[in-house]
């Protein structure tokens, strides 16, 4: 066994092991391509964008299901992107913003304050969906450390195979079809739904014994504010017009006081006057009885909000810039066909994804 052979065999083993592990890892990693849970690919999608946005939204499903960047672009020529993910916690929003700043510098950052109610890590699945799509950077490392529940390990984020390996017995055709990459399901971060389910008897929140937000949340809100100041980005706090989970007045007051204290704009879309101005009607503009807006509601909300942003932050109409125009034209095209596709499915199958009866079980 000459020295050369030893190195040869050693390298051979190392390389083949690495390749096999990488392939297996890609196979067992969830692809999030079967509706209704498509939200897993939201974060990764951002890296396909042109990194030239004037407005960046960060927050949970109240962001990525209630605002439509296509409307903001078509009506006002404002390029924006929604870096949203399922139950995105406040520190995850902070690190996603920090991560985005490595690629671009938006003029305005919009943060939905609902996640202030979660003081500590909630669920492993949501952490995975909010973090795994990120490219590796210190932001991702800090995001993992801040989000991990006790049973999770940092190593299983570096090597997802350590987490998903037991899925070997449920590898399906989808894992092979999307092995090299997933099909874009979102429109600059917007999750489109074209169906309608009027809001009815949405419960009023029962009183709580403790309305205070946790220290961690205040700390990250301050860090988000200072990050925006340092990069001279205007931070806008909003509460999206989702009727559930209930947005307690006591919470709202704390955010209003905070905004006033730091001279930040805070728009509570649940407020009657603002809601009236947006023209949102919960009988036609929501697809799940008031939890999230459908595409019609999102367009109304985005139209109003676009006007607000243009007037308050003098955001120019950049619809003539060729690169941006092309990028958003593609998105708009997909956007239109998606609406058509969902409408047809609605008439044919009674659900937007065209799932047959037994698939919906």
């Amino acid at each position, binding site marked *: 066994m000459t020295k050369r052979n030893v190195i040869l065999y050693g390298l051979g083993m190392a390389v083949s092991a690495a390749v096999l592990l990488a392939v297996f890892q890609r196979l067992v990693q969830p692809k999030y391509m079967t509706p209704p849970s498509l939200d897993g690919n939201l974060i990764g999608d951002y890296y396909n964008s042109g990194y030239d946005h004037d407005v960046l939204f960060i927050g949970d499903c109240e962001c990525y299901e209630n605002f439509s960047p296509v409307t903001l672009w078509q009506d006002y020529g404002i390029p924006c992107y929604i870096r949203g993910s399922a139950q995105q916690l406040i520190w995850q929003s902070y690190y996603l913003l920090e991560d985005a700043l490595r690629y671009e510098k938006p003029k305005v950052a919009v943060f939905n304050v609902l996640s202030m109610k979660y003081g500590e890590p909630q669920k492993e699945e949501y952490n995975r*969906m909010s973090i795994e799509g990120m490219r590796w950077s210190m932001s991702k490392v800090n995001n993992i450390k801040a989000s991990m529940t006790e049973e999770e390990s940092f190593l299983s984020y570096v090597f997802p195979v350590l987490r998903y390996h037991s899925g070997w017995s449920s590898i399906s055709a989808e894992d092979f079809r999307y092995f090299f990459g997933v099909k874009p399901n979102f429109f600059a971060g917007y999750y489109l739904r074209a169906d309608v389910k009027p809001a009815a008897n949405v419960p009023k929140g029962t009183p709580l*014994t403790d309305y205070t937000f946790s220290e961690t949340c205040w700390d990250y809100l301050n860090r988000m504010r200072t990050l925006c100041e340092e990069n001279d980005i205007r931070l806008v706090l909003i509460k999206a017009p989702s009727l559930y989970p209930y947005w307690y007045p006591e919470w709202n007051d704390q955010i209003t006081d905070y905004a006033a204290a730091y001279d930040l704009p805070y728009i509570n879309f649940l407020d009657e006057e603002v809601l009236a101005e947006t023209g949102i009607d919960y009988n036609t503009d929501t697809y*799940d009885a008031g939890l999230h807006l459908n595409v019609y509601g999102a367009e109304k909300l985005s139209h109003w909000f676009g006007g607000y942003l243009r007037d308050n932050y003098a955001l120019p109409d950049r619809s003539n810039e060729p690169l941006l125009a092309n990028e958003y034209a593609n998105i708009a095209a997909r956007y239109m066909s998606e609406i058509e596709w969902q409408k047809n499915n609605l008439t044919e199958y009674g659900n937007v994804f065209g799932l047959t009866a037994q698939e919906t079980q």
Partner: protein
Amino acid sequence: MNKKFTSVLAAAMLLTALTACGTAEDDSVAEPAEPAAAATTTTTAASTEAAALETTTAAEAESAGAAINYDYVLNGVTIVPGAESEAVLASLGTPDSTFEAPSCAFTGTSYYYTYGGVQVVTYPDEHDQSLNRFYEVDLMDATVSTPEGIKVGDTYDALVAKYGTPTQETPAFAMYKTEGKAVQFFLEGNNITQIVYVVQFN
């Protein structure tokens, strides 16, 4: 030459044996412990499994002397916060209204049912999403009252007279707590505005 050595050792061992009597005093904890491997540092006393969250149905004698009922009886059906909801909901008949709140992207939905002035809320079991448990029961108006006869609108003094000193209280609410659940009376000034039976996760 090594005459005393083994007898000293053997005697020491036998001594420990003589002091013992037959009863196996170790609480039988189902941890197989053959010479499989060395452990990390665990206490020598056999480590018992943490007692699972048991919902005690019998009302315990709380600080209030008279037994407080932490489960609400609606149309003759007892609702125990934290317990499985399927069977109980069936026996309650059709609710006046229902509201479903699916979590962002996954299965597991919270359900809100109203029966007259009472609202019943369920939550998905942590491990088995298809299984639902009672989260809380809210008495929203004066048409309904607690088994002890307190209802929305009554005064704080009437409450304390019936329930005794609360386990925890602030100007905004008075709470009576027991293992795994609690009854909360929300106050405005001296009157009760809402009553909530809610599960307490430790």
